[in-house]
């Protein structure tokens, strides 16, 4: 059982240009928690700060103020503490065409985290573990020899998911994992994520701007608007009974079968 908490986290970006060193508050005083076995959706329009939260969570950016706690302990942003944290908390990036290095094979992408986190030592162990990871994301183990450009978007994103699973994390962040994929294969990738979440009892932060999938795949929804979390609660409640005007707008725009029935 693991929990990850944000406590009043603020992130300001210093903007270049201009004498006064203007800043942009990408994340304003955000608090929430993710725990094992649950999926939390973070919904918001473009530029609302969703990816910034993912970067803060992954220690790719440091918060301007506020605290990030893992199992109640502040996350260390260097050294062995950070390495341990990265074993427990992993991420799937938005664009599978950008998150895999064009120079390296699929095998390389999966072998590195395995070795870094001591999940495989010898070459044979690594090969076996890589093949196993590929099977788990429903890819042919033969794919290990391929380069990213030889694969489809969906296959690449599965590789990215396999890479995130390699250290056997407790918490998984998925930043718009299907927005770059063809509509026809989105559901397959989301179902795969949901299955893995259940099998591993992962805590998942599912970032999206699609309310329908957020509701279907997650237990809780956080609605983000201009850097703030304006609404949070159990999925059905947030969608069926939105309080904040922005959520109401979102809910109305999203296809909603129950509402249509009521009409």
């Amino acid at each position, binding site marked *: 059982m693991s929990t990850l908490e944000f406590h009043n986290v603020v992130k300001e970006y210093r903007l270049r240009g201009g004498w006064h060193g203007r800043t942009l508050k990408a994340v304003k005083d955000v608090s929430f928690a993710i725990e094992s076995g649950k999926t939390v959706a973070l919904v918001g329009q473009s530029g609302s700060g969703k990816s910034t939260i993912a*970067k803060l969570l992954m220690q790719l950016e440091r918060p301007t103020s506020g605290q990030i706690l893992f199992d109640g302990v502040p996350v260390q942003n260097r050294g062995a503490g950070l390495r341990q944290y*990265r074993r427990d908390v992993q991420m799937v990036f938005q664009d599978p065409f950008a998150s895999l290095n064009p120079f*390296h094979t699929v095998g390389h992408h999966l072998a590195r985290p395995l070795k870094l986190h001591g999940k495989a030592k010898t070459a044979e162990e690594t090969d076996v573990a890589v093949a196993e990871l590929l099977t788990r994301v429903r890819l042919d183990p033969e794919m290990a020899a391929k380069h990213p450009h030889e694969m489809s978007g969906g296959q690449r994103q599965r590789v990215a998911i396999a890479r995130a699973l390699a250290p056997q994390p407790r918490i998984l962040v998925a930043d718009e994992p299907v927005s770059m994929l063809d509509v026809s294969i989105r559901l397959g990738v989301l179902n795969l994520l949901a299955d893995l979440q259940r099998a591993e009892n992962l805590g998942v932060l599912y970032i999206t701007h699609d309310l329908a999938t957020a509701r279907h795949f997650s237990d809780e929804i956080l609605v983000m608007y201009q850097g703030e979390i304006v609404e949070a609660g159990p999925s059905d409640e947030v969608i069926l009974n939105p309080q904040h005007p922005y959520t109401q707008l979102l809910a109305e725009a999203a296809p909603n079968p129950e509402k249509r029935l009521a009409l």
Partner: protein
Amino acid sequence: MEQTLEAPRASAAAAVQPKKRQRRPRSAKLMAGLIIAGAIALFGILGPLFLGDPNAISNDTLAAPGNGMLLGTTQTGQDVLAQLAHATRGSLTIGVLVGAMAIVASAFFGIVGAYIGGWTDETFSLITNVMLVIPGLPLVIVISSYVPDKGLLLIAGVLALTSWAGGARVLRAVTLSLRNRDYVAASRVSGEKTWRILMVEILPNLMPILASQMVFAVIFAILGEAGLAFIGLGASGTWTWGSMLFYAQNGLALRLGAWWWFVPPGLLIAVFGAALSLINFSIDEIINPKLRDQTLAARKRWNTPRTKKLTVPGTEKTSS
């Protein structure tokens, strides 16, 4: 990237289909460059083994080519072909040495600074910019005229010192863009160490640029050394194309009409430079597909007027 590097000669049909762009005939330039440069390099490597002593003096002075001397002799009866072989070896050695040193320096100052950022980047950028605004050849002349005993290594070092900065700037710019790629962030998330991300994730993607800069540094070095040697500031006791030209000039080869003495080294400089430029163009096209498209467009423009001239009279006849 490999794909583009490998994609070799292709059919003419491929050029027409926009989808199969990668399989266009593009390697002609590269092949020509590689073959010419390779032949010259081979001459430099093997020539000195089979040809005699370039310094050996004979009574057969200023002989025109022929009579057993393929390229004739100098004023003091030295074999020009033997000299040319040794000079080729010398010039290429300088080129390779300078290329290697310059590439290491520009990679260090360009890539490391940009990746680490902060003060390191500021300092490295400052050093790079200072080196960039110092005019190269004059500095080389000043340095090499102050040092009395100039070895090959010193000349190479001086040339490398003045030639790495431009490359470092380019590498810095590209690294700045690469370090923000998602796959670098993904490696950090995987727990990869900084230096390993730099060496394993970023550096391979800089390979074509490094190759192109290496080629450029070699051209610069060979030309620079030739210039220095020609004005008598070259490496002492080493044959290079430049020193051959220097001796030819001193021996009044031009006035005496001894073309076989100065034409071969001059020609080799020009041809080798051209071959390396050809290689560089094709590397540039690999890095920057836009350039490739421009070449293609230019080729098309080149072709269309001719086809028009052929078809227009015909259509006029049928329409009128």
